[in-house]
C-alpha cells in the first residue's frame, strides 16, 4: 500500500486555479522532493495533504485513510511542519513539545519519553528550557521538525524546511532529514535544487499548479537536451572543423561561441541525449592538426531540468 496517494487534486481560490489535476503516489521509505518556482502550488498541495485546505475536487489518502473522510486518522499518521514554522512564542521549548505530544494523543510517561527523544534527535538539548521567542531561526526550524517527529508518524510533510537558514544550518537540517529517512517517509518542498539532488530519491516538479515531471533525479537528468552537450576549445580555422563535425551522426547542431584571446575558438556541439561524442570530436580536430585545450561534456543537473520544465519564455 502506498503511503500517500493523491488522485486528481484540484484547488481553486476564487477564479484562480492554484492546483490542477495533481496525481502522484509516494511509497513507504521514499524521500520525495517537491520542486517548483514560487507560487507554483507546492504549499497548497501540501496543505491539502494535511487536510488543512480541503481540495476543490479530487481526493488524497495517507496510509490508506482518506483525508476528507477520516481526517483524524490520516493526521495521526503524519507529522507536518508548515512553512515559516509558526510556534507559540510565549512557551518554552520543552513545554511546547509536551503540549504538542499530548495533542497528538500521547499520555503519561510516553510524553516525557517522546519529548526527550525528539529533543535529543534534533539537537535541542541546550535550548530545552529557552523561551521560543528567543530562539534563532535555525533552532525554531528544529523545534518545528521535532514537533513533526512527535508520535513517530510514518509520514513527514516538511514545507521548505531549510528556508531562510545560513549554509551551515542548512547542512545540519539536511543531515537531520537524511537520517530520518530510515524510519520515515518524507515529503519536502524546496526551491534549493542541490538539496533535492542530495537527499531525495524522487522528485516531483510542479509548475503553474500542475505536475510537470515525477521521477528519480537520475532519470530526469538523463533525458535532457543538455545531456549530450559538449564544449570544445581549439586553435585553428573555423570552417573545416564545422564541416567535419557536422558529419558525425549523432551531432544535431553546432554553435560557434566566439574567438577567445590567444586565437582559441570555442564551439558548443549539441548531440543526442545520452551519447558521448567527445572521442569523435577529438579525432576530427586531431586529423585537421589543430591543438585542443578544452573538451567537456556537460553533466546535466536538476537545475537544467528545472529550468527546462518551468521557464515560461
Amino acid at each position, binding site marked *: 500500500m502506498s503511503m500517500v496517494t493523491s488522485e486528481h487534486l484540484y484547488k481553486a*481560490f476564487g477564479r484562480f486555479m492554484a492546483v490542477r489535476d495533481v496525481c502522484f503516489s509516494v511509497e513507504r521509505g521514499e524521500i520525495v522532493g517537491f520542486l517548483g518556482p514560487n507560487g507554483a502550488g507546492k504549499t497548497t498541495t501540501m*496543505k491539502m495533504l*494535511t*487536510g*488543512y*485546505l*480541503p481540495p476543490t475536487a479530487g481526493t488524497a489518502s495517507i496510509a490508506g485513510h482518506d483525508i476528507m473522510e477520516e481526517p*483524524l*486518522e490520516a*493526521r*495521526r499518521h503524519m507529522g*507536518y511542519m*508548515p512553512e*515559516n514554522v*509558526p*510556534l*507559540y*512564542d*510565549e*512557551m518554552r521549548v520543552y513545554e511546547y513539545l509536551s*503540549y*504538542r505530544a*499530548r*495533542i*497528538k*494523543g*500521547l*499520555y503519561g510517561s*510516553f510524553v516525557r*519519553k*517522546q519529548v526527550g*527523544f525528539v529533543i535529543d534527535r534534533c539537537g535541542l538539548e541546550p535550548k530545552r528550557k529557552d523561551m521560543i521567542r528567543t530562539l534563532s531561526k535555525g533552532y525554531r526550524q528544529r523545534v518545528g521538525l521535532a*514537533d513533526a517527529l512527535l*508520535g*513517530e508518524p510514518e509520514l513527514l510533510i516538511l514545507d521548505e524546511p531549510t528556508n531562510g537558514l545560513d549554509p551551515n544550518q542548512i547542512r545540519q537540517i539536511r543531515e537531520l532529514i537524511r537520517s530520518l529517512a530510515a524510519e520515515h517517509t518524507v515529503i519536502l518542498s524546496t526551491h534549493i535544487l542541490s538539496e533535492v539532488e542530495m537527499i531525495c530519491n524522487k522528485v516531483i516538479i510542479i509548475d503553474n499548479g500542475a505536475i510537470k515531471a515525477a521521477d528519480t533525479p537520475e532519470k530526469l537528468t538523463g533525458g535532457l537536451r543538455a545531456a549530450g552537450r559538449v564544449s570544445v576549445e581549439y586553435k585553428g580555422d573555423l570552417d573545416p572543423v564545422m564541416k567535419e563535425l557536422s558529419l558525425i551522426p549523432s551531432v544535431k547542431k553546432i554553435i560557434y561561441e566566439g574567438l577567445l584571446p590567444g586565437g582559441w575558438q570555442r564551439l558548443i556541439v549539441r548531440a543526442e541525449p545520452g551519447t558521448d561524442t567527445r572521442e569523435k570530436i577529438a579525432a576530427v580536430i586531431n586529423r585537421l592538426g589543430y591543438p585542443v585545450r578544452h573538451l567537456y561534456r556537460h553533466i546535466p543537473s536538476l537545475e537544467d531540468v528545472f529550468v527546462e520544465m518551468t521557464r515560461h519564455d
Partner: protein
Amino acid sequence: MPQEEPLHSTIRRRNSWLATFKTLYFRELRVYLCTPFGWVILACTMALLGFCLQAVLQIMSKATGEGVMYYMLNNINFWFYFIFIFPLITMRSLAEEERQGTLEGLLTAPVTTTQVILGKYFASYTFYLILWTPLLLYPWMSHLANVYTNCRYGIIAEGEITYLMADWIGPYCILALMGTLFVAVGLLCSAMTRSQIIAGILCTSFMISFYFLGRVTELWGEFPAAPIFHYMSCTEQVSSFSRGLLDSRPAVLYLSLAVLTLALVKRVVDHRRWTR
C-alpha cells in the same frame, strides 16, 4: 471511551476526546495566567473596582437598604468598564493564532475544530470568572469595616455598612450568566478576523449595542414590544439578581444564545478553511 493503539514498540497513543480537550484548555488558560497579558487585565479590573467602591461608599453614606454589591453593580461606573472586559480577554484567542499561523499547526494535529473552540471558550470563561474573585473580598471587607467602626466609635446604626449573603450569590450568578454569552461573542469576533484590533472593535460594539438595547424602554417608555427589551435588559437583570432575586429567564436567554454563538464560531472557523 479511551482506546489504545500500539503504534511502535516505544510509544502508545490514546484517542480520548476529553484528554485532548483538557490539553487545549490548560494551554489557553496558561496564556492568561503565565503571561503579563492576564495579569494586566486583572490589575486594571481591580483598580476600576476600587474606583467603583469609592463611588459606592459615597452613595451608601446617603442611602442604605441594599448591600454593597447592589450598589457596586447598579452603577454606571461598573458598566463603563464591564463592557470592555470581554473584548480584552477574547480578542486575541483566535485572531492571534490566525495571524501567527499557529492555527495551521493546531488544525493539522489530530484534534477537531470543536475541541479547539471549546478549549478556548472555557479557558476564556474561566479567566473571566477569575477576574471576579477579588470581589469576594468586598463583603468581608465591609464586615471588617463594621467591626472597626464599632470598636472605635461604639455601635452606631447609621455607620453600619450593610452586607447580605445575597451579596455573594445573586451578583455572581448574573455575572457568570452574562459571561457565558459575552465570552462566546468575543470568540466569534476573534474568529472572524486575523486582526486583534478589529476583533476588539467588533466585540465592543456588540457589547455597547446589547447594553443599550436593554435601556430602550427607558428612552421610549412602554410600548407593545417592550417586554422583549425588558427580557434582554442586562441592567434590569443585574439589578434584580444583586437584590437576591434569582430568575431562571436570563439563564435560558444567555445559555441558549451562548450555545448558538459557539455553533457559529465553529462554522466560521471551518468556513475560513473551506474558502481560502
